[in-house]
């Protein structure tokens, strides 16, 4: 009995769920059944993943004997501790969505197809995480991409959906080719297809090939992880997918990109100089900063969250890159520590980002729009969603005492110990990355004050938003994730203990005792640097919040409190346009980071078009230039189109011409065979 057996169960459940969804998704009952199965699979995945964290790695097995093949390659599976983190995350997300979906989707034909695709995507993700062999991995990876493509295409009629799905597919395929190339190099040099064997023979790969393979893998998985400039699909695909679909994309699929990078960086190709680490760290830091900066210019909640996903994976990748650098400088402890921190952030991000996307779906359902500047005052209309979203927001804004704070604190502690590399240049670069993450963190708080305050606080900006009511919106799923966020914060020491074991299986460094000397206190890799206890911090902060309440209660009997309207300067009446909107709130960043945004401002005033200067309606717009789409991707698309035009003449439709092609081919083959 090992974790893999449980994961078989999960896979089976999801397969069944897919079938149930496809056949019976059109009926309410079938839809429920499908979601229940999917949820059971999720629970099994949580169990299996969690167990494999502490269980250690299983050897590669070939279910159904060596004869079992998958598209020509042997079907090889394994359960590793490294993957265990992601499997557990996958499970939690699956459970939450299974709890959420029945109330979110209406029973219909489209839903049936969607649910089938979604459950297959879950299965494919599990396949990626349990793949023990190269072929299995690639097949699972590709089928995951295709399934996700269907998930995004929930509403194929709309052009936007088609466009978003296309962006996703294009970058997935590009990434897939790079990954294939990386694996081919690897297996070619190690003469192996099993991942564990590859890892064991990793030292055989000569430096140049090693670097090439790693960079290919980084770029390939970067497409999924959304590293700038390969991130463009996220803001396009997330808004068009259903809420739970985008939650799944951000919560799991994007993190699988990070898994791939970790797989290559720590398991398959460890070592190999500092510069791959520097490249990784740089890519991560840049992604984090640019991600959050673009998030600040979005008023569509889901696009906003998508950009914040880019930021978070950026943070994770930065941690991984720094870890690689430390490894190159023989700082094994920090190597393992930053791996742990990165994995922890993956888990946290998976939880709160899924939560926020699910709640975005709730808001969209209830208020009929995702545009922050058309919402407002939802805290009075969707109180329960507001509370849950608030927990998630605290988490993602990395504010104590929630989980985001813990993992980001760990990452910073790791980066701040860059001086241990002994090289000044490297130390400076690492601190530079830390500074970038610092800026990112600050902007993230700013962004999520906005992301929560504008839609939920204040007064409704449209009649539609004012009419929003709480009517059967799904609560349980997001609530589960909120609980998970709190647990990940308060139970950080336990989580870290588990992760340290996972890290040991990869790095061979036993960090457990050093990281956790007991008393629920965390010490980042070196006892002489710093320490803190997430648990006590949480308890203290909650207690601190209680103090003013107690004072209020104590002081109550003396002065009878009176409630009067908000002081408004004595104007006749407040209008919704008299409050901060999402775009005006983030205007200062637009001014500060002018160079990045290159905004184009257009103003229409009644007082301008008339010499007398009569007052009247005002219209103000500031559009941000989509730099990457315009200056990077548009040329590529143009080139591809040109190429297509160029090779069209080959397809003349003339049979004789085609026979000629065949003949030439055979001739060439013979000649090559002869050589």
């Amino acid at each position, binding site marked *: 009995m090992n974790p893999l057996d449980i994961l078989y169960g999960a896979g089976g459940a999801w397969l069944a769920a897919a079938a149930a969804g496809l056949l019976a998704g059109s009926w309410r009952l079938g839809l429920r059944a499908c979601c229940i199965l999917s949820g059971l699979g999720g629970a099994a995945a949580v169990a299996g993943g969690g167990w494999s964290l502490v269980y250690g790695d299983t050897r590669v097995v070939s279910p159904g004997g060596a004869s079992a093949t998958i598209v020509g390659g042997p079907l090889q599976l394994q359960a590793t501790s490294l993957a265990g983190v992601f499997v557990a995350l996958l499970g939690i997300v699956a459970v939450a969505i299974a709890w959420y979906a029945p109330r979110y989707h209406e029973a219909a034909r489209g839903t049936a197809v969607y649910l089938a695709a979604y459950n297959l995507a879950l299965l494919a993700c599990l396949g990626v995480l349990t793949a023990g062999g190269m072929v299995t991995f690639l097949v699972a990876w590709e089928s995951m991409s295709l399934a996700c493509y269907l998930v995004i295409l929930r509403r194929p009629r709309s052009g936007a959906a088609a466009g978003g799905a296309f962006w996703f597919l294009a970058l997935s395929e590009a990434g897939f080719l790079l990954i294939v190339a990386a694996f081919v190099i690897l297996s070619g040099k190690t003469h192996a297809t099993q991942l564990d064997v590859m890892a064991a023979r990793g030292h055989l790969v000569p430096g140049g090939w090693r670097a090439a393979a790693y960079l290919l893998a980084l770029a390939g998985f970067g497409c999924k992880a959304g590293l700038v400039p390969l991130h463009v699909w996220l803001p396009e695909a997330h808004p068009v997918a259903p809420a739970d679909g985008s939650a799944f994309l951000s919560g799991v699929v994007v993190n699988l990109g990070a898994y791939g990078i970790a797989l290559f960086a720590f398991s398959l190709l460890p070592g190999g100089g500092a510069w791959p680490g520097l490249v990784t760290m740089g890519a991560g830091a840049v992604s984090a900063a640019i991600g959050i900066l673009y998030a600040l210019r979005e008023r569509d909640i889901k696009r906003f969250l998508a950009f914040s996903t880019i930021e978070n994976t950026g943070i994770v990748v930065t941690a991984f890159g720094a870890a690689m650098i430390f490894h190159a400088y023989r700082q094994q402890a920090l190597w393992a520590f930053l791996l742990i921190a990165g994995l922890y952030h993956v888990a946290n991000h998976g939880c709160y980002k899924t939560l926020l996307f699910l709640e975005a779906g709730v808001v969209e359902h209830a208020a009929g729009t995702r545009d922050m500047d058309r919402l407002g005052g939802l805290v009075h209309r969707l109180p329960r969603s507001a509370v849950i979203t608030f927990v998630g927001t605290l988490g993602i804004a990395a504010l104590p005492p929630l989980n985001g704070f813990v993992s980001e604190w760990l990452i910073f502690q790791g980066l701040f110990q860059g001086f241990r590399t002994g090289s000044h240049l490297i130390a400076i670069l690492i601190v530079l990355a830390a500074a970038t993450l610092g800026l990112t963190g600050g902007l993230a708080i700013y962004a999520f004050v906005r992301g929560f305050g504008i839609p939920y606080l204040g007064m409704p900006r449209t009649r539609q938003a004012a009419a929003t009511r709480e009517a059967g919106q799904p609560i349980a799923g997001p609530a589960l994730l909120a609980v998970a966020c709190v647990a990940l914060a308060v139970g950080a020491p336990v989580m870290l203990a588990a992760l340290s074991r996972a890290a040991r299986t990869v790095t061979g460094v036993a960090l457990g005792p050093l990281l956790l000397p007991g008393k629920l206190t965390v010490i980042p890799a070196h006892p002489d640097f710093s320490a803190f206890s997430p648990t006590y911090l949480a308890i203290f902060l909650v207690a601190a919040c209680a103090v003013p309440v107690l004072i209020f209660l104590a002081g109550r009997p003396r002065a009878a409190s009176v409630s009067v309207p908000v002081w408004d300067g004595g104007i006749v009446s407040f209008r919704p*346009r008299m409050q901060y909107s999402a775009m005006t709130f983030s205007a200062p960043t637009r001014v500060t980071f002018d160079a990045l945004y290159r905004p184009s401002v257009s103003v229409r005033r009644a007082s301008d078009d008339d010499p007398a200067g009569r007052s*009247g*309606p005002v*219209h103000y717009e500031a559009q941000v230039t989509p730099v990457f789409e315009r200056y990077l991707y548009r040329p590529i698309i143009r080139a591809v189109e040109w190429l297509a035009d160029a090779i069209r003449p080959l397809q003349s439709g003339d049979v004789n011409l085609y026979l000629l092609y065949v003949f030439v081919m055979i001739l060439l083959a013979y000649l090559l065979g002869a050589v």
Partner: protein
Amino acid sequence: MTAVEPRAAGTRESLVRQLAGLGGLEVRDSGATRGAVTIRIPAETLEAATHALAGMAGTRLADMFADNDGDAPTLRLVWAHESGYLVTETEIECDQYPPLSDIAPAAFVEECEIYEQFGIRPATGKPLNRLMLPPHAGPDFPRLGHRPARPPDEAHAPHTVEGQAFEFPFGPVRQVGVESLYYGLVTSGEEVVDLYLFTWHKHRGVEWRLRGKTPREAIFLAERAEGLSAVAVGWAFAAAAEAALGIAPSSAAARTRAVALELERLYNHAAATAALCQATGLTVGQSAAEIALERLLRVNAAAFGHRYLFGVIDPGGAGRAPDADVLRRELPGAYGELRRAADALLATNSFVDRLEATGILTTEQARRLGLVGPVARATGLAVDARLNTSGPRGGYPDGSPYAGPSVKVVTADGGDVFARFQVMLGEAAESVRLIVEFLDAGTAADRTMLPVKGDGEVGGGTGLGWAESPRGEVLAWVALDEDGRISRARLRPGSVRNWRGFDDACRSQNVFTDIPIIEASFWLTAAGLAR
């Protein structure tokens, strides 16, 4: 900072001669309004005439108002010209008249006011601004004329904000110790996109109250239309009444008024300096300026018996004579305080930097909107009612008080807050010089009792009066009926003009925190605009 010598004060005849040169305009000084050239223009040629006058060199639309003696309201345009004022009268039979603000944009504020008070509007579909009537003003709300056919709300444009901006509501209850005023401040979060103004909170119906009063009763309210330029408004009103009655104050009384007027300018500029320091957060500078201000006010009290010079102006003469010794003794010291504070301020970079390139108005804007006072002079326009020395009805016995000591008009370029500040400082120095000259020439309180019905030739009449307040040109137009009571009085303090420039100045490339500075540099009152 430059100083303009006054032009040779042209005579009324020269103005008429120039007017005769204009096409499409038969000129005959009906003499209806004493103190100015008056020509009647039929409604159909009003538009052409306005074109001609607006195009004429050196003219500026100074005011526009209506009154309805009889049933059809009469539209009066007051044009300022270097050689005197010109009043055009036009009977408006229907409830519409040509859109004059398209020809002379300066007319816009008055178009709005006339619509609210008399119900006649320019013949254009464009909306008007809300000026004095509160939103809840019903049909029975007292007006000077007939009420609008349609309720004003229909004519007023809605202040809707779209796109990535929001309206920052500011007022009517604002900081401590400032007037009630509402800004609709449309901002994108940083820069000021647009700004509109509500002052109807302060509309006290002064012009409405003046009807039926004798000039001497009325001056009491006229002074309180804009208390911070009580002397200027009072003088303009008194001069108008005197012109209407065909009398003139003695030169000594006129000089007394002039002394009071310059004292008023002094303390206002000191107050504006203090306000500028407050707006820029320079508290020490504010204290220094306030010491000067308080000392100047005490000089006022010691010399005229009132800190704000109420009651100095009296129709027919001057209510009080200044204590010349006190002035000679105290004024240099008090002004020295202001001078020293100003010098220290000009040496303080953190202060000057906030002023430079803030709230810029171009000369073109100033001319287009018919701005007056330091605001206009800071853009290089030498606009100053003191230059117009042709007194009421053939002038003062021996000329206007300003005819003798040639008044230097201080102007500056740049049109920003700093330019305004410099103009104010220059004018303060000039005022002190003038006061001394006036005192040397001799001042006295002279209360010629106004002739009223019964004692002789005086019947009704209409007259135009003007004075240069610290905020710019004040105009008053008074029509007296047979027994010397006011049938219609028009008061136009400088604030009415310059508030129009204020929103333009705020709109030009400024951020939030510049607005208090710009407001301080304009140093206007809502009381004067809303009246």
